[in-house]
């Protein structure tokens, strides 16, 4: 079990803000693990993802920092793939699906366009896009939201990064598509032995496949540990509330049942 990234006393304040978005975070990312980052809006979970990816906007003030086992920060696109919440915003509307997936492979793996296209075709198959040869020539608007997110995942993984960050990657999708995308991520990360940082507001969604969990609130790390242990014996009141507030089909309804 080797540590991929040691985050120590990390604080981030965005330009023009008085209140830091992250305050004194200590967290290890272990190579090959699936680490779930859980939090509600304003918890700092997306700021953590951006800090780890080196994608904080210019003018952000950071203190403390991250130490990578490789000795240098991961290069976004090559060592690290990032999947965002809104696939429409992360795909270029005027480039074909093929160009966008091939681009990363061409740039970071040094492939010719021809070989990069065949890598893109392979990636579209791996993310289960129907008729991948046709999809190569399609534009993002011709695909559904779920298919676009599959394409965004294919593009993020085209350069074979060892580390994938998915930031609310399923929140804009309906439940059925969400379940499909989570199972796709699970499959791809397992096959390639990648490290996954899975950021979500939904602790139950992450519980199915994350090894460890870190819970954030108001820019601070509330609690972290193995997923099973945190769910079974949460230490903090906030974690307990988060678990208690979860609703699924076995939660008693708020309305009286009607006779059939």
């Amino acid at each position, binding site marked *: 079990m080797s540590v991929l990234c040691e985050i120590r006393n990390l604080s981030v304040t965005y330009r023009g803000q008085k209140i830091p978005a992250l305050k004194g975070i200590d967290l290890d990312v272990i190579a090959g693990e699936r680490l779930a980052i859980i939090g509600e809006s304003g918890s700092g979970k997306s700021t953590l993802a951006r800090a780890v990816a080196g994608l904080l906007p210019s003018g952000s003030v950071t203190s403390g920092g991250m130490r990578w086992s490789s000795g240098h920060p991961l290069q976004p696109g090559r060592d690290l793939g990032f999947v965002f919440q809104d696939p429409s915003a992360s795909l270029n509307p005027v480039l074909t699906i093929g160009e966008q997936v091939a681009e990363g492979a061409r740039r970071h793996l040094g492939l010719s366009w021809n070989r990069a296209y065949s890598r893109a075709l392979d990636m579209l198959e791996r993310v289960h896009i129907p008729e991948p040869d046709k999809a190569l020539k399609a534009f993002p608007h011709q695909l*559904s939201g779920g298919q676009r997110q599959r394409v965004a995942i294919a593009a993020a993984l085209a350069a074979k990064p060892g580390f994938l960050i998915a930031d609310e990657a399923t929140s804009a999708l309906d*439940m059925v598509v969400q379940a499909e995308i989570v199972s796709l991520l699970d499959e791809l990360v397992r096959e390639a032995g990648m490290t996954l940082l899975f950021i979500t507001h939904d602790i*139950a969604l992450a519980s199915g496949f994350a090894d460890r969990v870190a819970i954030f609130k108001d820019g601070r790390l509330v609690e972290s540990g193995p997923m099973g242990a945190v769910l*079974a014996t949460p230490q903090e009141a906030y974690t307990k509330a988060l678990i208690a*507030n979860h609703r*699924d089909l*076995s939660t008693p309804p*708020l309305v009286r049942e*009607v006779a*059939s």
Partner: protein
Amino acid sequence: MTLLSVENLSKRFSSGGRQVAALHDVSFMLAAGETLGLVGASGSGKSTLARILMRLIPADAGRIRFDGEDWLALTGPELRRRRAKMQMVFQDVLGAFNPRATVASVLDDPLRIHGIVPKNERPKEIATLLDRVGLSASYAERSIREVSGGQRQRIAIARAIATRPLLIVLDEAVSALDVSIRGKILELLVELQEERGIAYLFVSHDLAVLRAVSHRIAVMDAGRLVETGTARQVIDNPQSSAARALIAAVPRFATGTSAGISEGHDS
């Protein structure tokens, strides 16, 4: 008592030269004071149905009877007057408000337009409405942009109940909210229903939310209503593949031992 009956409703859209059936022969009934949860994946037609009901877009075929009247035949001032009885709450509440509005003006509009209370009583009514949705009267002078997402959704609910409606159509009304706030909004909706006998048509892709508040659930798939039953029937014994897929997709805790999770159904 039947409040709303939808009969053989159909709607087609043309998209890139193709005709797409957004709704195909949809029929259902809703009783006064009842909640019907309408569930389906993206593109199943549930929002099209909500928009036709609100008379935001026309239907191609079919009938809607609401509160004893032919709802699709109403026009002009007749329709405007009756709209007080059917209100709507959207997912994106900020998009549903004039961004320059204050909380008071958002609530004043329906009271004025529908003549709910005399002019001099409107400030008091606004305070009462705010209080009813759990906000203090001091919110009245705030800008709608200054308040949090959860507070804005409470204001949207206050606006919807201001006209004393018989039916509120809720279109993904809690989907954008944090889980802790979502639960409180659902509780508020159920309280208001018990107190005022309002019927809800609750549209969502999230079956766990619908299970919490629905008496009956209707499942849509590709423009068709494929299954209707009591909430328990649909969830415990789904008949359609669409319902089974929606049930399987609800996130649940992977370990059965966690605190706060009830075992099985309530009795």
